[in-house]
């Protein structure tokens, strides 16, 4: 229901302020109930009415002064009444366009469009909210413009033809394993639950006292974290489409995200210790231009995009092959003397490289495998600590953009590490040139 004007300006959906209010809106609705159905005189409810009125007016004004339009290769958003802001987002730099539907937005049949931009600042253009019927056409149009603009500016797109075959579903995360995996990953949680249960059996009074005194609040916060995880990853669907990988999912709040292959900075596969008997793993990717969005808690800031919350290893590796072509297959173990330096990690430490990609395995209790396409490597670091020097070992770090993936060739023979540093430097340079030429 965005109202277009002749000069191409559009407004957001009129219900936007209501949805954006989120929990505040619900609180206001509760405030309004006694006002409408109460038997008291209106003058008694005057303060509430005044608050609601002011907020409603504020919301209406913010809606009124916000407008957007597409200008050539840019998306322009103007907003603010007193502090007028005019934002320009070059479509050529769009990394991806996500569609987000929080619970309240689904109720009002609207959705938010989030344009993730490239660049160090990683700004995100947000159109919150747009009517449900318009979201998909608008998204397709923006994507087409972004592709056009990229071609126009000579930036390689790596995208397929616009009208390529419809998307193919690769994986849907099953609910049972998802719940089990969320609980299993936190082994301590099971210990605490078991402790509490046995506490109830042995001495119900003490256990009740523990729950009553602070333990209750603590339990709620744990449940909130677990719930958020479940809410985000419920029936997460991975599909292959024209633009790359399509991710969709969520229980109350729905999100849809497209991952272009070129946007992946690094991929990592995590196998927590309690998952390993089941052969499960989690696949995460570090993406350019991803930052904390609405509906993602503080805890998710700087975290990776989960592609598969829980999956069999073979399926995850299949997906890795799509994201990181030509991944190395023979990973070599470190020398035996590493047992003295890293006794817990010794068994899992591995590394290998192909001409375009480096892979490392590390981890003490959980096993973490990282893949970094060499054209995405930012810098390389060779580090030798005192213990390593005594054992003639050294580590090489492959630094990537983003915060989540630490690809480290840990504890290699000193000569091998020096050789690896040299090789990787040359290969990374070649990979960058190759990408620049295409």
């Amino acid at each position: 229901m965005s109202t277009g004007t002749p000069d191409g300006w559009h407004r957001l959906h009129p219900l936007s302020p209501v949805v954006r209010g989120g929990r505040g809106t619900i609180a206001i609705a509760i405030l309004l109930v006694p006002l409408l159905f109460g038997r008291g005189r209106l003058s008694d409810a005057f303060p509430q009415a005044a608050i609601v009125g002011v907020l409603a007016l504020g919301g209406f004004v913010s809606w009124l002064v916000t407008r957007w339009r597409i200008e050539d290769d840019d998306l322009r958003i103007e907003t603010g009444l007193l502090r007028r802001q005019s934002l320009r987002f070059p479509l050529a730099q769009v990394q991806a366009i996500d569609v987000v539907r929080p619970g309240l937005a689904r109720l009002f049949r609207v959705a938010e469009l989030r344009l993730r931009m490239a660049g160090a600042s990683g700004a995100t253009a947000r159109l919150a909210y747009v009517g449900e019927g318009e979201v998909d056409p608008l998204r397709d149009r923006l994507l087409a413009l972004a592709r056009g603009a990229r071609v126009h500016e000579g930036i390689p797109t790596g995208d397929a033809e616009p009208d390529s075959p419809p998307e193919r579903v690769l994986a849907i995360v099953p609910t049972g394993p998802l719940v089990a995996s969320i609980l299993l990953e936190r082994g301590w949680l099971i210990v605490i639950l078991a402790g509490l249960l046995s506490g109830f059996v042995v001495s119900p009074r003490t256990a009740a006292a523990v729950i009553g005194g602070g333990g209750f609040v603590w339990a709620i916060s744990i449940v909130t974290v677990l719930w958020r995880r479940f809410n985000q990853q419920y029936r997460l669907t991975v599909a292959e489409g024209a633009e790359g990988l399509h991710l969709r999912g969520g229980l109350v709040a729905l999100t849809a995200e497209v991952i272009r292959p070129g946007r992946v900075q690094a991929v990592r596969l995590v196998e927590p210790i309690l998952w390993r008997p089941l052969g499960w793993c989690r696949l995460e990717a570090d993406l350019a231009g991803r930052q904390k969005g609405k509906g993602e808690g503080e805890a998710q800031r700087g975290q990776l995009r989960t592609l598969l919350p829980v999956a069999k290893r073979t399926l995850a590796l299949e997906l890795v092959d799509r994201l990181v072509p030509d991944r190395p297959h023979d990973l070599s173990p470190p020398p035996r003397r590493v047992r003295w330096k890293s006794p817990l990690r010794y068994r899992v430490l591995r590394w290998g490289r192909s001409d375009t990609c480096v892979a490392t395995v590390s981890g003490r209790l959980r096993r973490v495998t990282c893949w970094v396409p060499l054209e995405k490597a930012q810098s390389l670091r060779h580090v030798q600590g005192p213990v390593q020097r005594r054992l003639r070992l050294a580590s090489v770090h492959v630094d990537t953009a983003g915060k989540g993936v630490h690809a480290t060739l840990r504890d290699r023979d000193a000569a091998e590490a020096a050789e690896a540093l040299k090789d990787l430097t040359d290969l990374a340079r070649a990979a960058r040139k190759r990408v620049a030429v295409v």
Partner: protein
Amino acid sequence: MVVEPEQWRTPSRRLLRLRRWEVAVPAVAVAVVVALAGGRSSWALGFAGGVLVAGAIVWVVVGRRYQSWGYAERDDDLLVRRGVLFARLSVVPYGRMQFIDVTAGPLERVFGLATVRLHTAAAATDARIPGLEREEAGRLRDRLAELGEAQAAGL
């Protein structure tokens, strides 16, 4: 890394002097104050002596740390090495540099020095060269910026 020894450049000798002053001045000051305040009692003199010995050890360590710093400008990347206990060698391709900043703290300014720091998109990149004379810092900054622009690669 194959780098000819003469390709390595080191920070200014003035950095070494600055670092040594930073150790010597407080150590001597504390030793003198304690010795005087303690009325030349044996424990005060012992403490002052201890401070001086510790200062002397740090003096030597500072010298070795200074020796470890080095940087080399190669065709496609900048190498920075540092560290005695933990020896680090960073390779930063010019095309990956996002920005370069040159800072000079109050003490550094007194000695006419500046620190050049390189930033890439990776937070872990840790390439900083302290104790460059101001002209050298300016030259390096301009050259790196120029090379960075010429070889810039997308994310």
